[in-house]
Protein backbone atom coordinates (compact mmCIF):
# COMPACT_ATOMS: atom_id res chain seq x y z
CA UNK A 1 0.00 0.00 0.00
CA UNK A 2 1.15 3.52 -0.78
CA UNK A 3 2.19 5.17 2.49
CA UNK A 4 0.40 8.43 1.60
CA UNK A 5 -2.87 7.09 0.16
CA UNK A 6 -5.83 4.91 1.06
CA UNK A 7 -5.01 4.78 4.77
CA UNK A 8 -1.39 3.62 4.31
CA UNK A 9 -0.48 5.97 7.17
CA UNK A 10 3.31 5.72 7.24
CA UNK A 11 4.00 9.23 5.99
CA UNK A 12 7.43 10.77 6.48
CA UNK A 13 9.18 7.48 7.17
CA UNK A 14 9.99 5.89 3.82
CA UNK A 15 10.90 7.37 0.46
CA UNK A 16 8.74 4.74 -1.24
CA UNK A 17 5.37 5.92 -2.55
CA UNK A 18 3.27 5.40 -5.66
CA UNK A 19 4.59 8.46 -7.57
CA UNK A 20 8.09 7.02 -7.59
CA UNK A 21 7.23 3.37 -8.10
CA UNK A 22 7.66 1.83 -11.53
CA UNK A 23 5.60 -0.95 -13.03
CA UNK A 24 6.49 -3.00 -16.12
CA UNK A 25 6.40 -6.50 -17.51
CA UNK A 26 8.83 -9.04 -18.91
CA UNK A 27 7.93 -10.81 -22.12
CA UNK A 28 9.72 -13.20 -24.47
CA UNK A 29 9.88 -12.52 -28.20
CA UNK A 30 11.91 -14.78 -30.48
CA UNK A 31 13.78 -16.37 -27.56
CA UNK A 32 14.83 -13.01 -26.14
CA UNK A 33 13.40 -11.49 -22.97
CA UNK A 34 12.36 -7.83 -22.98
CA UNK A 35 11.25 -5.49 -20.20
CA UNK A 36 8.43 -3.09 -21.11
CA UNK A 37 8.35 -0.07 -18.81
CA UNK A 38 4.71 1.04 -18.66
CA UNK A 39 5.54 4.64 -17.72
CA UNK A 40 5.48 5.66 -21.36
CA UNK A 41 1.97 4.31 -22.14
CA UNK A 42 -0.63 6.96 -21.22
CA UNK A 43 -3.59 4.72 -22.16
CA UNK A 44 -2.53 2.31 -19.38
CA UNK A 45 -2.02 5.08 -16.81
CA UNK A 46 -5.04 4.23 -14.62
CA UNK A 47 -4.22 0.52 -14.28
CA UNK A 48 -0.55 1.36 -13.81
CA UNK A 49 -1.35 3.88 -11.06
CA UNK A 50 -3.62 1.46 -9.24
CA UNK A 51 -0.95 -1.25 -9.39
CA UNK A 52 1.56 1.23 -7.98
CA UNK A 53 -0.75 2.25 -5.13
CA UNK A 54 -1.93 -1.19 -4.05
CA UNK A 55 -0.31 -4.10 -5.93
CA UNK A 56 -2.72 -6.83 -4.80
CA UNK A 57 -2.59 -10.11 -6.72
CA UNK A 58 -6.17 -9.58 -8.01
CA UNK A 59 -5.24 -6.15 -9.32
CA UNK A 60 -2.04 -7.39 -10.96
CA UNK A 61 -3.88 -10.38 -12.51
CA UNK A 62 -6.50 -8.05 -14.04
CA UNK A 63 -3.75 -5.72 -15.28
CA UNK A 64 -1.91 -8.67 -16.89
CA UNK A 65 -5.06 -9.54 -18.81
CA UNK A 66 -5.38 -5.95 -20.03
CA UNK A 67 -1.74 -5.98 -21.15
CA UNK A 68 -2.09 -9.22 -23.08
CA UNK A 69 -5.13 -7.83 -24.90
CA UNK A 70 -3.29 -4.70 -26.09
CA UNK A 71 -2.13 -4.49 -29.69
CA UNK A 72 1.65 -4.76 -29.58
CA UNK A 73 3.99 -4.34 -32.54
CA UNK A 74 7.67 -4.81 -33.31
CA UNK A 75 9.45 -1.70 -34.51
CA UNK A 76 12.99 -2.11 -35.83
CA UNK A 77 14.20 1.05 -34.06
CA UNK A 78 12.24 0.95 -30.81
CA UNK A 79 11.62 -2.76 -30.29
CA UNK A 80 8.28 -3.66 -28.69
CA UNK A 81 5.71 -0.84 -28.70
CA UNK A 82 1.98 -0.29 -28.96
CA UNK A 83 0.67 -0.55 -32.54
CA UNK A 84 -1.46 2.57 -32.34
CA UNK A 85 1.62 4.78 -32.33
CA UNK A 86 3.44 3.22 -35.30
CA UNK A 87 1.91 1.89 -38.47
CA UNK A 88 2.98 -0.94 -40.77
CA UNK A 89 4.96 -2.80 -38.16
CA UNK A 90 4.97 -6.48 -37.44
CA UNK A 91 2.15 -7.32 -35.02
CA UNK A 92 2.97 -9.36 -31.93
CA UNK A 93 0.85 -11.49 -29.64
CA UNK A 94 2.55 -10.88 -26.32
CA UNK A 95 2.37 -13.08 -23.30
CA UNK A 96 3.29 -11.54 -19.96
CA UNK A 97 6.02 -13.67 -18.32
CA UNK A 98 5.81 -11.60 -15.15
CA UNK A 99 4.46 -8.22 -14.12
CA UNK A 100 6.83 -6.47 -11.74
CA UNK A 101 6.54 -3.47 -9.43
CA UNK A 102 9.76 -1.66 -8.50
CA UNK A 103 10.49 0.90 -5.80
CA UNK A 104 13.30 3.46 -5.61
CA UNK A 105 16.15 3.07 -3.12
CA UNK A 106 18.54 5.79 -2.04
CA UNK A 107 21.69 5.74 0.02
CA UNK A 108 23.01 8.88 1.70
CA UNK A 109 26.53 7.38 1.84
CA UNK A 110 27.24 7.07 -1.88
CA UNK A 111 24.18 9.02 -3.23
CA UNK A 112 23.22 5.96 -5.29
CA UNK A 113 19.66 5.78 -6.67
CA UNK A 114 18.51 2.32 -7.76
CA UNK A 115 15.39 0.25 -8.20
CA UNK A 116 14.48 -2.90 -6.33
CA UNK A 117 11.64 -5.34 -6.79
CA UNK A 118 8.68 -4.70 -4.48
CA UNK A 119 6.43 -7.45 -5.76
CA UNK A 120 5.77 -9.47 -8.90
CA UNK A 121 2.94 -11.41 -10.47
CA UNK A 122 3.49 -14.47 -12.65
CA UNK A 123 0.38 -15.54 -14.58
Amino acid at each position, binding site marked *: *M*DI*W*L*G*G*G*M*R*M*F*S*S*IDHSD*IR*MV*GFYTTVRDST*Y*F*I*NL*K*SYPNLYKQS*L*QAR*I*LPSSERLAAFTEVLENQKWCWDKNNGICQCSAIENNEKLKLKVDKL*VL*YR*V*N*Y*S*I*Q*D*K*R*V*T*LSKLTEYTP
Partner: protein
Amino acid sequence: MSLKALFDKINSYLGLDNDEAFLIIALRIILLVPCVAIPHLFISLFFPGIIFPKIILSKTYWLFITLMMFIYYVMNNLDDLIANHIHVYVFLMILGSLTVVLRSWNYDWKSFFGTSAKWLIGMIFLLATIGKFLAPEFADGSFFEFIAFNDKRFEGFTSVLLGAQSEMLSENKQVLDTLLATKEPENSVYYFKSTSLISTISLYMTYWTVVIEGLIALLFLLPERVKLSKYRDIVLVLFIITTYPIATVPGFAMSLLLLAFVQSYLKNDRNSAYTLLYLFIFIFISVFAFPYSPYIKRFF
Protein backbone atom coordinates in the same frame (compact mmCIF):
# COMPACT_ATOMS: atom_id res chain seq x y z
CA MET B 1 -2.30 42.80 35.30
CA SER B 2 -1.88 39.11 36.20
CA LEU B 3 -1.57 36.50 33.46
CA LYS B 4 -4.90 34.98 34.47
CA ALA B 5 -6.63 38.34 34.11
CA LEU B 6 -4.95 38.91 30.76
CA PHE B 7 -6.07 35.50 29.41
CA ASP B 8 -9.56 36.11 30.74
CA LYS B 9 -9.66 39.40 28.85
CA ILE B 10 -8.41 37.82 25.61
CA ASN B 11 -10.79 34.85 25.93
CA SER B 12 -13.70 37.14 26.63
CA TYR B 13 -12.80 39.24 23.56
CA LEU B 14 -12.61 36.08 21.41
CA GLY B 15 -15.93 34.81 22.75
CA LEU B 16 -14.14 31.84 24.31
CA ASP B 17 -15.50 32.46 27.80
CA ASN B 18 -17.59 29.36 28.49
CA ASP B 19 -17.59 25.65 27.63
CA GLU B 20 -20.35 25.96 25.04
CA ALA B 21 -18.46 28.72 23.20
CA PHE B 22 -15.35 26.53 23.27
CA LEU B 23 -17.30 23.55 21.88
CA ILE B 24 -18.75 25.65 19.04
CA ILE B 25 -15.26 26.90 18.11
CA ALA B 26 -13.80 23.37 18.23
CA LEU B 27 -16.63 21.95 16.11
CA ARG B 28 -16.30 24.78 13.60
CA ILE B 29 -12.61 24.00 13.28
CA ILE B 30 -13.43 20.31 12.64
CA LEU B 31 -15.61 21.46 9.74
CA LEU B 32 -13.14 24.08 8.49
CA VAL B 33 -10.08 21.83 8.29
CA PRO B 34 -11.34 19.47 5.54
CA CYS B 35 -12.51 22.43 3.44
CA VAL B 36 -8.90 22.84 2.23
CA ALA B 37 -8.97 19.42 0.56
CA ILE B 38 -12.43 18.07 -0.24
CA PRO B 39 -14.84 18.59 -3.18
CA HIS B 40 -17.28 21.52 -3.09
CA LEU B 41 -20.20 19.14 -2.66
CA PHE B 42 -19.07 18.40 0.88
CA ILE B 43 -18.12 21.99 1.65
CA SER B 44 -21.79 22.91 1.01
CA LEU B 45 -22.77 20.39 3.67
CA PHE B 46 -20.35 21.96 6.14
CA PHE B 47 -21.27 25.61 5.68
CA PRO B 48 -24.61 25.51 7.58
CA GLY B 49 -22.73 24.20 10.61
CA ILE B 50 -19.97 26.76 10.31
CA ILE B 51 -22.42 29.66 9.96
CA PHE B 52 -25.27 28.78 12.38
CA PRO B 53 -24.44 27.94 16.06
CA LYS B 54 -27.72 26.01 16.55
CA ILE B 55 -27.00 23.73 13.61
CA ILE B 56 -23.44 23.00 14.72
CA LEU B 57 -24.73 21.66 18.04
CA SER B 58 -27.36 19.44 16.40
CA LYS B 59 -26.63 15.72 16.68
CA THR B 60 -28.80 14.96 13.62
CA TYR B 61 -26.67 17.32 11.53
CA TRP B 62 -23.41 15.78 12.78
CA LEU B 63 -24.54 12.20 12.29
CA PHE B 64 -25.69 13.06 8.75
CA ILE B 65 -22.51 14.79 7.57
CA THR B 66 -20.24 12.23 9.26
CA LEU B 67 -22.16 9.36 7.67
CA MET B 68 -21.85 11.03 4.24
CA MET B 69 -18.11 11.49 4.66
CA PHE B 70 -17.61 8.01 6.11
CA ILE B 71 -19.46 6.27 3.27
CA TYR B 72 -17.76 8.34 0.57
CA TYR B 73 -14.21 8.27 1.86
CA VAL B 74 -13.74 5.30 4.18
CA MET B 75 -16.15 2.57 3.03
CA ASN B 76 -16.00 3.47 -0.64
CA ASN B 77 -12.30 4.29 -0.51
CA LEU B 78 -12.39 5.30 -4.19
CA ASP B 79 -9.66 3.15 -5.74
CA ASP B 80 -7.25 3.88 -2.88
CA LEU B 81 -6.67 7.36 -4.31
CA ILE B 82 -7.83 9.06 -1.12
CA ALA B 83 -5.01 10.89 0.65
CA ASN B 84 -4.46 9.81 4.22
CA HIS B 85 -5.29 13.27 5.52
CA ILE B 86 -8.88 12.80 4.36
CA HIS B 87 -9.13 9.67 6.51
CA VAL B 88 -7.88 11.78 9.44
CA TYR B 89 -10.62 14.38 8.74
CA VAL B 90 -13.24 11.62 8.89
CA PHE B 91 -11.86 10.44 12.24
CA LEU B 92 -12.10 14.03 13.52
CA MET B 93 -15.72 14.20 12.35
CA ILE B 94 -16.51 10.96 14.18
CA LEU B 95 -14.98 12.53 17.31
CA GLY B 96 -17.09 15.68 16.81
CA SER B 97 -20.27 13.62 16.30
CA LEU B 98 -19.73 11.52 19.42
CA THR B 99 -19.07 14.64 21.47
CA VAL B 100 -22.27 16.32 20.26
CA VAL B 101 -24.29 13.14 20.91
CA LEU B 102 -22.87 12.77 24.46
CA ARG B 103 -23.63 16.42 25.17
CA SER B 104 -27.24 15.97 24.03
CA TRP B 105 -27.54 13.01 26.45
CA ASN B 106 -26.08 15.16 29.29
CA TYR B 107 -23.04 12.90 29.59
CA ASP B 108 -19.59 14.26 30.49
CA TRP B 109 -18.69 15.33 26.95
CA LYS B 110 -15.75 17.48 28.13
CA SER B 111 -13.92 14.55 29.62
CA PHE B 112 -14.63 12.42 26.52
CA PHE B 113 -13.56 15.14 24.07
CA GLY B 114 -10.39 16.11 25.97
CA THR B 115 -9.27 12.54 26.69
CA SER B 116 -9.93 11.42 23.11
CA ALA B 117 -7.91 14.36 21.71
CA LYS B 118 -5.01 13.59 24.08
CA TRP B 119 -5.01 9.88 23.22
CA LEU B 120 -5.28 10.57 19.50
CA ILE B 121 -2.18 12.79 19.64
CA GLY B 122 -0.31 10.19 21.68
CA MET B 123 -1.21 7.31 19.37
CA ILE B 124 -0.51 9.30 16.17
CA PHE B 125 3.01 10.05 17.37
CA LEU B 126 3.58 6.57 18.76
CA LEU B 127 2.69 5.00 15.40
CA ALA B 128 4.71 7.65 13.53
CA THR B 129 7.77 6.79 15.66
CA ILE B 130 7.32 3.05 15.12
CA GLY B 131 6.90 3.66 11.37
CA LYS B 132 10.27 5.42 11.27
CA PHE B 133 12.03 2.45 12.86
CA LEU B 134 10.40 0.12 10.32
CA ALA B 135 11.79 2.03 7.31
CA PRO B 136 15.43 1.03 6.67
CA GLU B 137 16.27 4.29 4.87
CA PHE B 138 15.19 6.51 7.76
CA ALA B 139 17.83 5.88 10.42
CA ASP B 140 20.90 6.93 8.41
CA GLY B 141 19.41 10.16 7.05
CA SER B 142 18.80 8.84 3.50
CA PHE B 143 15.08 9.57 3.80
CA PHE B 144 15.47 13.27 4.55
CA GLU B 145 18.20 13.81 1.97
CA PHE B 146 16.08 12.11 -0.71
CA ILE B 147 12.91 14.07 0.00
CA ALA B 148 14.88 17.31 0.28
CA PHE B 149 15.35 16.91 -3.49
CA ASN B 150 12.12 15.16 -4.45
CA ASP B 151 9.29 16.45 -2.32
CA LYS B 152 7.65 19.69 -3.43
CA ARG B 153 6.88 20.64 0.17
CA PHE B 154 10.61 20.75 0.97
CA GLU B 155 11.57 22.64 -2.19
CA GLY B 156 11.61 26.07 -0.56
CA PHE B 157 13.75 24.88 2.35
CA THR B 158 16.18 23.00 0.08
CA SER B 159 16.53 25.96 -2.31
CA VAL B 160 17.55 28.18 0.59
CA LEU B 161 20.13 25.61 1.78
CA LEU B 162 21.54 25.11 -1.72
CA GLY B 163 21.84 28.82 -2.45
CA ALA B 164 23.76 29.28 -5.70
CA GLN B 165 23.74 25.52 -6.31
CA SER B 166 19.95 25.29 -6.50
CA GLU B 167 20.14 23.81 -10.03
CA MET B 168 20.94 20.56 -8.18
CA LEU B 169 17.21 20.27 -7.47
CA SER B 170 16.28 20.01 -11.15
CA GLU B 171 19.31 17.84 -11.95
CA ASN B 172 18.35 15.30 -9.30
CA LYS B 173 14.74 15.32 -10.48
CA GLN B 174 16.03 14.56 -13.98
CA VAL B 175 18.08 11.66 -12.58
CA LEU B 176 15.00 10.21 -10.90
CA ASP B 177 12.87 10.60 -14.05
CA THR B 178 15.54 8.82 -16.09
CA LEU B 179 15.69 5.97 -13.58
CA LEU B 180 11.90 5.56 -13.61
CA ALA B 181 11.89 5.41 -17.42
CA THR B 182 14.60 2.72 -17.61
CA LYS B 183 14.23 -0.45 -19.65
CA GLU B 184 16.76 -2.24 -17.44
CA PRO B 185 15.38 -1.90 -13.91
CA GLU B 186 17.67 -4.51 -12.35
CA ASN B 187 20.88 -2.93 -13.65
CA SER B 188 20.22 0.80 -13.61
CA VAL B 189 22.33 2.82 -11.20
CA TYR B 190 22.30 6.61 -11.02
CA TYR B 191 23.74 9.13 -8.58
CA PHE B 192 22.29 12.22 -6.93
CA LYS B 193 24.29 15.35 -6.35
CA SER B 194 24.20 16.79 -2.86
CA THR B 195 26.16 19.03 -0.53
CA SER B 196 27.71 18.27 2.84
CA LEU B 197 25.33 20.82 4.39
CA ILE B 198 22.26 18.98 3.08
CA SER B 199 23.66 15.61 4.24
CA THR B 200 24.46 16.94 7.72
CA ILE B 201 21.09 18.64 8.11
CA SER B 202 19.33 15.47 6.90
CA LEU B 203 21.07 13.48 9.59
CA TYR B 204 20.22 15.99 12.33
CA MET B 205 16.61 16.15 11.13
CA THR B 206 16.43 12.37 11.43
CA TYR B 207 17.62 12.35 15.05
CA TRP B 208 15.47 15.35 15.95
CA THR B 209 12.31 13.84 14.40
CA VAL B 210 12.66 10.50 16.18
CA VAL B 211 13.44 12.12 19.53
CA ILE B 212 10.67 14.72 19.47
CA GLU B 213 7.98 12.44 18.02
CA GLY B 214 8.86 9.70 20.52
CA LEU B 215 8.80 12.23 23.35
CA ILE B 216 5.38 13.57 22.30
CA ALA B 217 4.03 9.98 22.19
CA LEU B 218 5.41 9.29 25.66
CA LEU B 219 4.19 12.54 27.25
CA PHE B 220 0.68 12.32 25.80
CA LEU B 221 0.23 8.66 26.71
CA LEU B 222 1.53 9.06 30.27
CA PRO B 223 -1.19 9.37 32.94
CA GLU B 224 -1.76 12.86 34.38
CA ARG B 225 -0.36 11.83 37.78
CA VAL B 226 3.13 11.41 36.29
CA LYS B 227 4.85 14.78 36.66
CA LEU B 228 6.61 14.53 33.31
CA SER B 229 3.24 14.75 31.53
CA LYS B 230 2.95 18.45 32.35
CA TYR B 231 5.59 19.19 29.69
CA ARG B 232 3.48 17.75 26.87
CA ASP B 233 2.27 21.09 25.50
CA ILE B 234 5.68 22.74 25.36
CA VAL B 235 7.13 19.72 23.48
CA LEU B 236 4.20 19.69 21.06
CA VAL B 237 4.56 23.42 20.37
CA LEU B 238 8.29 22.89 19.81
CA PHE B 239 7.49 20.14 17.30
CA ILE B 240 4.96 22.31 15.46
CA ILE B 241 7.18 25.37 15.15
CA THR B 242 10.22 23.34 14.07
CA THR B 243 8.34 21.10 11.62
CA TYR B 244 5.69 22.97 9.68
CA PRO B 245 7.78 25.90 8.41
CA ILE B 246 9.98 23.22 6.72
CA ALA B 247 7.49 20.44 5.87
CA THR B 248 4.52 22.44 4.67
CA VAL B 249 1.57 20.08 5.25
CA PRO B 250 -1.16 22.44 6.50
CA GLY B 251 -3.94 19.81 6.40
CA PHE B 252 -2.30 17.57 8.97
CA ALA B 253 -0.92 20.52 10.95
CA MET B 254 -4.45 21.95 11.31
CA SER B 255 -5.84 18.60 12.47
CA LEU B 256 -3.07 18.29 15.04
CA LEU B 257 -3.60 21.87 16.25
CA LEU B 258 -7.31 21.23 16.68
CA LEU B 259 -6.63 18.19 18.88
CA ALA B 260 -3.98 20.13 20.79
CA PHE B 261 -6.37 23.05 21.37
CA VAL B 262 -9.14 20.74 22.61
CA GLN B 263 -6.97 18.77 25.05
CA SER B 264 -5.27 21.94 26.32
CA TYR B 265 -8.56 23.79 26.99
CA LEU B 266 -10.16 20.82 28.69
CA LYS B 267 -7.06 20.04 30.76
CA ASN B 268 -5.90 23.50 31.80
CA ASP B 269 -9.20 25.36 31.49
CA ARG B 270 -9.19 28.33 29.20
CA ASN B 271 -6.56 30.27 31.16
CA SER B 272 -3.65 28.51 29.54
CA ALA B 273 -1.19 30.23 27.25
CA TYR B 274 -1.05 27.01 25.18
CA THR B 275 -4.78 27.01 24.49
CA LEU B 276 -4.52 30.45 22.90
CA LEU B 277 -1.19 29.65 21.26
CA TYR B 278 -2.63 26.58 19.48
CA LEU B 279 -5.52 28.70 18.18
CA PHE B 280 -3.13 31.44 17.08
CA ILE B 281 -0.84 28.99 15.22
CA PHE B 282 -3.92 27.37 13.65
CA ILE B 283 -4.95 30.72 12.17
CA PHE B 284 -1.50 31.40 10.72
CA ILE B 285 -0.32 27.88 9.77
CA SER B 286 -1.19 28.32 6.08
CA VAL B 287 1.36 31.15 5.91
CA PHE B 288 4.10 28.50 5.96
CA ALA B 289 2.75 26.86 2.79
CA PHE B 290 3.31 30.04 0.74
CA PRO B 291 6.05 29.52 -1.90
CA TYR B 292 8.66 31.92 -0.51
CA SER B 293 11.75 30.56 -2.25
CA PRO B 294 11.44 32.64 -5.49
CA TYR B 295 11.24 35.81 -3.37
CA ILE B 296 14.12 34.77 -1.12
CA LYS B 297 16.24 33.99 -4.19
CA ARG B 298 15.51 37.45 -5.58
CA PHE B 299 17.08 39.08 -2.52
CA PHE B 300 20.07 36.76 -2.00
